[in-house]
């Protein structure tokens, strides 16, 4: 298993380099200029002031040279300075990343808490009203974008439940409990689509498992209904669900960008959006790399979790 894990991690390196190259190319391909952001529309882009800004930021160098400068820094763990703020990017990411991680983790918990029981109930009541209701609500959850649910939730809560903390300040170091409270609603909003996906996978897998002969055997042995469902049914249905959870978790990281914007959370998504908006090339590079690394890591964890759930996979590698 260790060897497998090591292989996966080694293979992740070219993926990350590829992604950094692509994000570098894309952000430079987008027209527009950081100088216009720094200087505003009334300063000429070919004026001396603008040229000075460009020189100071190495933006007058050819693109491959700029990429080289960035890559050699990144390999040394130095992501450079934000072009807009002039501050090192590393500490910025370090302060924003935990918020995103916590938000994603919380919403994954929500998604599992909603999706798994939902899927099991839907499977056991197949075709009857609980199944239809769960699937109906699920479809709604999947098809309503989080920015809509988010704004609607904030607005409705602010009118009908003003004491609920909707847009508090998130500061994990100084006020962890308050921050967690503030993160509950965004995490719930973010989890809706993921919960539906997990519910659907669970339902499908459960339906398959429920038809297996060993389920009948288990019941014949006299095991309780719940025990049959959880121990024999869900456990065996989990493998495809875990895959779905992995994919969903990756989606959550992406969805966090939107939710952070709506709820004003100081996460990596905000950092990335601002960076793209301001054409802050170094910051875009670094944040994209961090988010990609997260997704790659999640995928590795998902792969490894197969081992724990189904030892047979170990033998085949």
């Amino acid at each position, binding site marked *: 298993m260790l060897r497998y894990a090591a292989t996966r991690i080694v293979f992740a390196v070219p993926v990350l380099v590829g992604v950094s190259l692509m994000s570098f190319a894309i952000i430079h391909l*987008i*027209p*527009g*200029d*950081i100088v*216009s*952001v*720094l*200087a*505003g*529309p*009334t*300063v*000429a*882009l*070919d*004026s*001396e*002031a603008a040229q*000075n*800004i460009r020189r*100071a930021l190495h933006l007058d160098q050819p693109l491959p040279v700029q990429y080289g400068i960035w890559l050699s820094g990144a390999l040394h763990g130095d992501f450079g300075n934000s072009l*807009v*703020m*002039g*501050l090192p990017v590393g500490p*910025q990411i370090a*302060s*924003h990343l935990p918020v995103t991680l916590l938000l994603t983790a919380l919403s994954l918990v929500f998604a599992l808490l909603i999706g798994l029981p939902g899927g099991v109930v839907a499977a056991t009541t197949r075709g009857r009203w609980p199944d239809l209701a769960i699937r109906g609500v699920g479809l709604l959850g999947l098809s309503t974008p989080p*920015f809509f649910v*988010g*704004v609607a939730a*904030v*607005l409705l*809560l*602010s*009118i009908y439940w*003003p004491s609920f*903390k*909707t*847009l*508090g*300040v*998130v*500061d994990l170091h100084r006020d962890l409990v308050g921050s967690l409270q503030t993160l509950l609603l965004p995490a719930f909003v973010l989890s809706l689509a993921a919960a539906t996906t997990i519910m659907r996978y669970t339902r499908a897998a459960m339906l398959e498992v429920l038809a297996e002969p060993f389920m009948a055997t288990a019941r014949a042995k006299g095991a309780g209904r719940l025990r049959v469902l959880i121990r024999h049914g869900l456990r065996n249905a989990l493998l495809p669900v875990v895959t779905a959870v992995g994919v969903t978790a990756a989606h959550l990281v992406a969805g966090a960008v939107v939710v952070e*914007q*709506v*709820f*004003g*959370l*100081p*996460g990596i998504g*905000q*950092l990335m*959006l*601002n960076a793209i*908006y*301001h*054409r802050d090339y170094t910051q875009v590079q670094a944040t994209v790399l961090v988010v990609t690394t997260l997704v790659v890591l999640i995928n590795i964890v998902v792969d490894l979790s197969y081992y724990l759930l189904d030892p047979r996979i170990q033998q085949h590698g």
Partner: protein
Amino acid sequence: MTADITRRRFLGSTGVGLIGLGYAAGLPAAAGDETPTPKRGGVLAIGHDENPIGLDPHKTAAFSTTNIAEHMFSCLLRWDATVSRVEPDLATAWENPDPLTFVFHLREGVKFHNGDVLTSEDVKFTFQRLVDPATRSPWASIFSVISAIETPDPKTVVFRLAHPFSPFLNYLASVRYTAIVSREDVKQRGDLIKGGVGTGPFMLDDFRPNSLIRLKRNPHYYEPGLPYLDGLDFRIIPDEGSRMAALRAGTVQMTWLSRPDSAAQMGDVPDIVAPEPEAFSRLLLLEFDQRKPPFNDVRVRRAFSLALNRELIVKVVWRGKAGLAAALPPMQAPFAVPSGEVSGLPYANEDVAAAKALMTEAGYAAGFETIFAVSPANYGDVQIAQIVQQMVGRIGIKIKILQKEWSQLVTDFQSTESPISMAGLVWGPDPDTNISIRLDSKSTVNPGKTADPVLDDLLAKARQSYDPAERTSLYRAVQQRVADMAYVITPCAAALRWEMWSSKLQGYRALPSAQRVYLRQAWLQ
């Protein structure tokens, strides 16, 4: 009082002129007298729409920075409540012995947030820093007009200008341009991106990017008893809907919105004060590429102007919350042609038949196709492009709208890539700020590539004249000329933002220039 005489003369030069002298005495009282007794204490939470690009007031033109820096820093002068007249701030008096010399006398006992006393050396350093290429200030070129700064004693600063420059005092009253920084502080920190010390009513307590900027009361602020508030909390909430919700819920007690329909929704909410802006500070401006056909032909531009029904644009796009405008935003009184007088300008009234005749005369009876570049970043721009498309379609100009992302549009605008492009132009401290950079043939920006010696001459005279009445008539002539030659089309002007706050906040006054400087005398009930 000699100071008062010179002051009056220069107050006049900033815009108010004869009218301003009339109501000068009544205004300062308006902000404080009619309200109940101020109360000390309390922290005001403000929903801020964008993470600031650092807190160094000299390094960026971004409003996201200025709107925080304006509480931390002060300038030699400041604006009065009408934003058309400067009044003393760090300088208590000033003289102008000749057109090239300005002498400022600094206020006694002003301290920076670190306790250091403000001296003339700090003022000198501030302007040296602004023009230093290493600072990368967007305004470096403006202050290159200063040829020398002398500091005969710690409380006196003498500026020597290379040529007469009448906008000078107005720039000295705007934190966005000339925030006075401490020489020692800048030397210690290198730059002020993470914050620094100023002389403003509030000082930096905490800066957490993308989350919170916390300012606390400056106990040494020079105005006795002010500010009343213990602090300001700027919460970064980029989403407009979320900011509205936060204000309703009381998470923040103040915010602003950029869409008239959002603002209209908040108008009915109890305990929220949502006044209509007093004057329109954001000018919508349509530029033509005048180097190439068809828009190098004045007849085509005039036809374009005649094809527009400006009242309809105001009604449809802005729900009536906008006004007509000439080439200056209407709030730039008295220089700007007031909204009510715009229809008196040439080619400002809809006349499709005359427009068609002009098109035929110019050889475009069959019309032509062209491209209109616009950015969806600001409310109104795309909507105006769409309605303009319909209107000029009637005279055969077939517009293809090209939506661009904002920073791309700025680039495009300056390199004059598209035959027509539009951007908003926001109030600047002096009429010269915006109009010269766009229409002077010597300007490096000049998006339409206008090259008109008559206009250049008028602009140069207005820039050098210290006589307010003369300046006003010169800028009126400029606007007349621009309308007549249809160098730019100004469909309308609107508010930059709609400010709103909880009714618990008292003593506050919103300025159409979107400066929140009056928080220094506001309190929470």
